[in-house]
């Protein structure tokens, strides 16, 4: 039998990288019981924490890249252990100190973000090409709102529809807004959770100085990941801006009667709470208010909703890593959509968009159902 002694040095490294959370864990296993991975495959989350407590973690184990940071366990943990912080610190040990192996696909995305400023590796000078023919102005000092689309919404042909719909809605609502120039980079939210701390710091500083220089005060986003990092992580680096997600903005416009729908949308729609907008921010009501105000739209809830929403599987860098068929959370979630007979899955996050679109393709459902960002549905009905 192998004999194990606590390895103080490893424990200290994890603690140094911000893994304080491991101290509070009393090994009840609630996190393992809650973790959506365990509906698909084995992921011994509790054991991973205990291994960190003992300093015997295997940094070459693929499991340290598994946690998607969906926050379901954090919200119910009896000791308030922030697993996302802990995972981030363990990954830092690999990413920054080089203690283990970074999965190839993640390393590629990291390189893309580092070099091109976006995970897709698209040329930075083409970042704002999506808006070329829309006649949208570039943000200048004095403009009320900066609309900041996520990298996917800027480059990915499917996600781009969100940015287009958003711009159209904003124009219709008469909003005073502008878009950034090509110098902005990825917000850095996911790559930070994946452990690339120094890269995150660089990205954040780049964006913060661009925003500050341009005199930005209010930023509208269509990705809850940008929302989370701008709102919760940039302030500690000196970036204090008012951040608003499109859902909040639209709900307010509708409430004030400033957005009038002219078309009926005869669709049976269900809504997927993304982790970053739901559990991270508690924004549950606004998307539902928007959908329920669209004429003709029939809204239906899936089994797991609000704070119990099931992750699409794309947070914390997991979007960039390969997940075997049969082990994908997005497919589990789509089953829930089929279960309630919805034809449209409304989402408000580019990662959910990517994962669910992949899901319906691999499940052969691309003709039966559609994945739509809320902005697209709103624009359709205006």
């Amino acid at each position, binding site marked *: 039998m192998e004999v194990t002694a606590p390895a103080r040095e490893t424990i200290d490294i994890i603690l140094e990288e911000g893994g304080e959370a491991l101290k509070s864990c009393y090994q*009840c*296993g609630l996190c*393992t*019981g809650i973790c959506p991975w*365990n509906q698909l495959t084995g992921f*011994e989350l*509790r054991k991973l924490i205990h291994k960190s407590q003992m300093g015997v973690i295997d940094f070459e184990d693929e499991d340290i890249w598994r946690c998607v940071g969906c926050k379901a366990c954090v919200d119910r943990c009896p000791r308030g252990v922030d697993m996302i912080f802990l995972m981030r610190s363990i990954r830092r040990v690999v990413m920054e100190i080089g203690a283990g192996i970074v999965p190839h696909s993640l390393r590629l995305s990291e390189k893309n973000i580092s070099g091109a400023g976006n995970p897709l590796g698209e040329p930075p000078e083409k970042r704002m090409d999506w808006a070329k023919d829309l006649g949208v102005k570039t943000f200048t000092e004095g403009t009320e709102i900066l609309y900041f689309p996520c990298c996917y919404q800027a480059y990915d042909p499917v996600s781009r529809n969100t940015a287009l719909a958003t711009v159209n809605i904003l124009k219709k609502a008469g909003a005073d807004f502008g878009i950034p120039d090509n110098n902005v980079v990825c917000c850095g939210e996911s790559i930070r959770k994946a452990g690339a701390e120094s890269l995150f710091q660089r990205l954040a500083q780049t964006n913060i100085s661009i925003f500050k220089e341009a005199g930005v005060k209010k930023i509208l986003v269509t990705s809850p990941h940008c929302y989370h990092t701008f709102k919760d992580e940039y302030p500690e680096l000196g970036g204090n801006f008012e951040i608003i997600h499109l859902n909040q903005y639209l709900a307010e416009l509708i409430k004030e009667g400033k957005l009038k729908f002219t078309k009926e949308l005869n669709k049976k729609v269900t809504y997927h709470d993304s982790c970053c907008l739901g559990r991270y921010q508690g924004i549950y009501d606004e998307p539902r208010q928007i959908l329920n105000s669209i004429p003709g739209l029939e809204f239906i809830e899936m089994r797991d909703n609000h704070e119990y929403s099931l992750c699409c599987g794309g947070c914390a860098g997991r979007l960039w890593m390969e997940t075997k068929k049969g082990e994908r959370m997005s497919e589990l979630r789509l089953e829930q959509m089929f279960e309630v007979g919805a034809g449209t899955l409304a989402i408000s996050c580019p990662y959910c968009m990517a994962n669910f679109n992949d899901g319906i393709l691999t499940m052969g459902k691309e003709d039966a159902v559609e994945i739509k960002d809320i902005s697209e549905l709103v624009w359709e009905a205006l």
Partner: protein
Amino acid sequence: MSQDKDKKDAQPKIGVYVCHCGSNIASVIDVPQVVEFAKGLNAVAIAREYKFMCSDPGQNMIKDDIKKLDLNRVVVASCSPLLHEQTFRHAVQEAGLNPYLFEMANIREHCSWTTEDHEQATKKAKALVSAAVRRVYYHQPLETKEVPVNTNTLIIGGGIAGIQAALEIANAGHKVFLVEREPSIGGHMIQFDKTFPTLDCSACILTPKMTSVGSHPNIELMTYSEVIEVSGFIGNFQAKIRKKPRYVDEDKCNGCGVCMEKCPWKASSEFDLGLSQRKAIYTPFAQAVPNIPVIDKEHCAYFQKGKCRACEKFCDREAIDFEQQEKIVEIEMGNIIVTTGYDPFDPTPITKYGYGRLPNVYTGLEFERICNSVGPTGGKIVLKDGSEPKSVAIIHCVGSRDKNYHKYCSRVCCMYALKYSHLIKEKTQADVYQMYIDMRCFGKGYEEFYERLSNEGVTFIRGKVAEVTDRAMNDDEKGKLIVCGEDTLLGTTVRVPVDMVILCIALEARADAKQVSQLLGISQDADGFFIERHPKLDPVATMSDGIFIAGCCQGCKDIPDTVAQASAAATRVLALISKGTVEMEAAIAVIDEEKCSGCRICNLLCPYSAITFIEEDKVSRINEALCKGCGTCVAACPSAAITHNHFTAEEIMAELEGVLI
């Protein structure tokens, strides 16, 4: 006591004693330096240091110096006056000084424990010593007065804690007012079926005590009543009790129960937690003490619709009184014991456990009633459909050890969970699963009980349950409640299909504990429980003299601990009664009648109603027995006519100057 040393005109001669408190003070503060500093202060005759000033040698050092050096003022720089002011006052008194010619400088809690900066700490210690020395210079001898202790005791709450305390005091020959807001005494304990680990029938061991309370000549039992006002101080409290109308004349009723039999109206039984029904006129349970029913106005047809009066018709004692009004009773007592108990945690917010949503998910307290032979199922452990469960899961730590609800361990759940396992095994063929995090079996005979249950074939699964669901994944799970979580010892997730789930709910502070704390002037901790005077050395007293706490209102505990604490509280009360008098604070306010303009501002502000206006002299006067020395009047007096003994302007100014060296 009053010797030359106390004389006002005697030149102050001060002794300063700096304590190391082991390493508590000395590891941070440079004590020799403080001593050297003290030696240079005005009127200081001697300054010394010692490892433990509170020890006998420490105290003797002070006493010897007083005698040898003819000291007439003493300063001790050590811990909080809360801990040792009395010790040192007593020491100087033994050496012939008036105890008020002593002053304490707190260089531990206020200094060495608050910083690791040695230099700054030493500097502050010097400032505190300097302040105490300057202050004590002006101290005057004061005389304490003694007032008699009223031998009556008020006990609030008639659960096992209140019952125990009441019997202890009443059996010692003193009067007890036992106030209970429910129609009967008995508390939660009377709802339990068996008690761990001995498995005594809870009612069998409690009802004899309840009956004794009911018939005891020294106990005035006031059920269906609430304390609404408390005033006074240790030895001399007054309280107002609201007696809610029962609509049954307590003097006429003989408890025959015919009214309950004939009453046609029903309501959900509070005693059975809604699992059965009771009548609109009812006693909560058969062995209620007193055995006098109450009419529930909300469900009585006569009160609601003006018709019925069936109870009245059949009562041959003519005890039914629909006109009865609530009564306010005023009582006096010397001491108060608070035994208001706990509330069971409502698990509804933990939606994933399905309580209130999934059938056959019960709380522990509900299960106690189900097990009980006079409970809603006649003691049969059955499911909602009347069938016997084939498997039961018992989930630990529901609302306990969880920062989302209560961070603390409720201390009783592991044991009652084991007890349930035994009862289920005894009464059914069911498989029992204990879903636990850590088994905490710390009491006498508890670990042995755990071992016994292990041998009875109970399955222990270590892990906090994530979810109870009725969504079956296979045929075996169909129609079952599936308990999901991680078996942390196997390191795998488990799904346990069962028929019944019991949630071991936490104990929590009473929802209205805050009102009680305000009523009595006692404090609550962060969890809402009442705070004892000292967590280890004085767990039954409160910071309010003459008010004691016992049982779960102070913190979660089991029956043996509750009974022990209740007996301890009773003993403390008896000690005060036995002593017969209490010393009144000498540091009280006095009015200089020459300066008093008779404006009466102080009369209204005094929280102890200690100041009255003397019409013939047109001045206000303070009742020395009632004044607690709070200082409110001193600050408020526009003519500066009120002086606070031991807190004179002279003393306070000198102290301030001392700090600002």
